[in-house]
């Protein structure tokens, strides 16, 4: 061990006043630093040669010590290679995608992503703002202390989030991280895309002859959202929810925390959105429509068929009313099930929920939501329609 290398940690550990700064905080000034982090001193007797540990390419030089630094292929490089290959091979690529099935698949896939991205970005901005600028005490004051009361309040609060379901997933995630009881955040997650004014107006326009449809949709969606919240409170276990994968930002400035949250959520939820869009496009392009016709004849099968259709089509909740209106061979109750199930659980949402709250959560939450939504739709349909 050379003195040149043991000296900095000693200073840092004991003598220098700035050593009291928390270890996560970014250094405030661009001071030239030693190439060896203090943690490496006890374990690795690095020779005093002034060579950096690895001749890493510039793209990964910023990373903390991890295997990628030694790997010859960094993700930046791989991304560049993928994009270049795609540009070079675009001729054969286009020919391969020329078949009508593939074109329909591509169009629906692109459409779902392009349609959902603005709402995802809106939800991500809101969620970052909640995570960074709204203190946890605000939610403690705004929501009733008792979780059983907080659930319906949060469910009704879903009415104020305009937009479709892609926005509600990141917002609900931010609420949980901000200390809102998960039961209330989940009620909000389920109700927000279904009962906001834009969606209810669209429903009224799509069903000009059945204004009761709007009431039925509002009532059934709120009921399911609250019931799922209460169910989670009774049966849910905190370990089903994946712990927040990033600690609440200490040390960093608010700007860094805000943009870090936006970046993380877009990359993460965006990836799952793409996965869901691929599934929805596959079903739209490949599944034969004549299956539906046979199901429409049976009253119970019809409800189940449209509930399943809502899951696989993954249509935005602002548009689903028009699709439901065109499925006129089905009973009103079956179409209500389509409108109640769709905003709460579909392929795209399942993928996004799995990404935000963990797969263990999504695998339990999604089937329960589906069953409850179908039952409540049947009940509401019997009473109101």
């Amino acid at each position: 061990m050379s003195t040149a290398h043991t000296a900095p940690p000693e200073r840092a550990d004991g003598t220098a006043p700035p050593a009291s700064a928390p270890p996560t905080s970014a250094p405030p000034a661009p001071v030239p630093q030693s190439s060896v982090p203090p943690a490496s001193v006890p374990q690795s007797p690095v020779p005093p040669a002034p060579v950096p540990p690895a001749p890493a390419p510039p793209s990964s030089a910023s990373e903390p010590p991890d295997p990628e630094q030694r790997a010859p292929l960094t993700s930046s490089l791989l991304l560049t290679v993928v994009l270049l290959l795609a540009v070079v091979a675009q001729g054969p690529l286009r020919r391969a995608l020329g078949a009508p099935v593939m074109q329909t698949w591509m169009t629906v896939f692109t459409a779902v992503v392009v349609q959902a991205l603005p709402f995802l970005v809106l939800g991500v901005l809101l969620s970052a703002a909640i995570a960074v600028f709204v203190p946890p005490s605000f939610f403690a004051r705004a929501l009733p202390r008792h979780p059983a009361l907080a659930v319906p309040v949060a469910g009704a609060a879903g009415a104020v989030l305009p937009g479709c379901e892609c926005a509600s997933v990141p917002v609900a995630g931010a609420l949980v991280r901000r200390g809102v009881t998960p039961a209330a955040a989940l009620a909000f997650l389920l109700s927000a895309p279904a009962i906001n004014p834009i969606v209810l107006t669209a429903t009224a326009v799509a069903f000009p002859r059945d204004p009761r449809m709007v009431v039925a949709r509002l009532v059934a969606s709120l009921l399911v959202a609250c019931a799922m919240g209460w169910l989670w409170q009774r049966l849910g276990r905190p370990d089903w929810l994946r712990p927040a994968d990033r600690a609440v930002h200490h040390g960093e400035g608010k700007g860094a925390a805000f943009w870090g949250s936006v970046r993380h959520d877009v990359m993460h939820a965006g990836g799952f959105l793409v996965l869901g869009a691929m599934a929805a496009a596959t079903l739209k392009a490949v599944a034969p429509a004549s299956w539906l016709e046979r199901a429409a004849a049976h009253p119970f099968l019809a409800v189940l068929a449209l509930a399943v259709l809502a899951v696989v089509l993954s249509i935005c909740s602002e548009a689903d009313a028009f699709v439901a209106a065109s499925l006129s061979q089905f009973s009103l109750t079956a179409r209500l099930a389509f409108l109640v199930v769709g905003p709460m659980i579909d392929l795209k949402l399942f993928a996004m929920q799995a990404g935000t709250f963990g797969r263990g959560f999504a695998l339990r939450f999604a089937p329960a939501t589906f069953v409850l939504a179908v039952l409540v739709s049947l009940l509401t349909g019997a009473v109101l329609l």
Partner: protein
Amino acid sequence: MTLNRHAQAALLFLTGAALLHAGTTDLYLRYVKPGLQPLLLASGAVLIATAAATLWYERKQTRGKTPDPHPHPHPQPSPHPHPQPSPHPHPHHEPGISWLLVLPLLALILVAPPALGSYSAMRTGTALQQPYGTTPLPPGRTPLHLTVVDYATRAVYDHGRSLTGRPLTVTGFVALDARGRPYLVRMALTCCAADAQPVKIALTGHVPPILQPDTWLAVTGTYTSRRTTDPVNHRPIPYLRVTGAHPVPTPHDPYDETWNT
């Protein structure tokens, strides 16, 4: 392989740029309704800002901790403790799922798939909706331009009362059913192409002898009371008696927006 921050910034920037590109040209109209344009442009700008912020904070953070590219033979003892190692194991990386964001990027920029056409039109039943009421057409003897949805709605629900004895022009794309019978179709869209549904008019009279599916045609003709039913959902499809047809370029907005709110 996980994505490091530079790759993330690149992906965010490219996705934002692709959204701006689609939103400033007619490209976005192949996939979503026109009303989404401001939101598309705004979200594209936000994504680019996120990419810029990611690089900016990354530089700010690393300026203090990267090894000097020209290391000093005698490293100066730092007055600050080194902030690394971080308590989070992988604070900079996003999991492999984020790689999927490359796909819509390639789809938008390289492939730019066309608007939905005859393939999906013939797999889906016609989606006529009963109107609130029909307004009378302007009087005159010159050919009147109607949308596919307008013609089909008047022909089916108004029994052609407002259409009789009037030359009409309707624009749509050609689709052929399993038996080769020609239809003039327009996809009606309420939000995005995933919810697009066809409205179909069957063609009779002087139909051009060779019809290529997905060709856009401006068809001139007159109302006829003849009707058929859609093989997919058994709903009514009106006929149009064709007197002439000529190909036209694909419209700026390939979808019918009658039902948009």
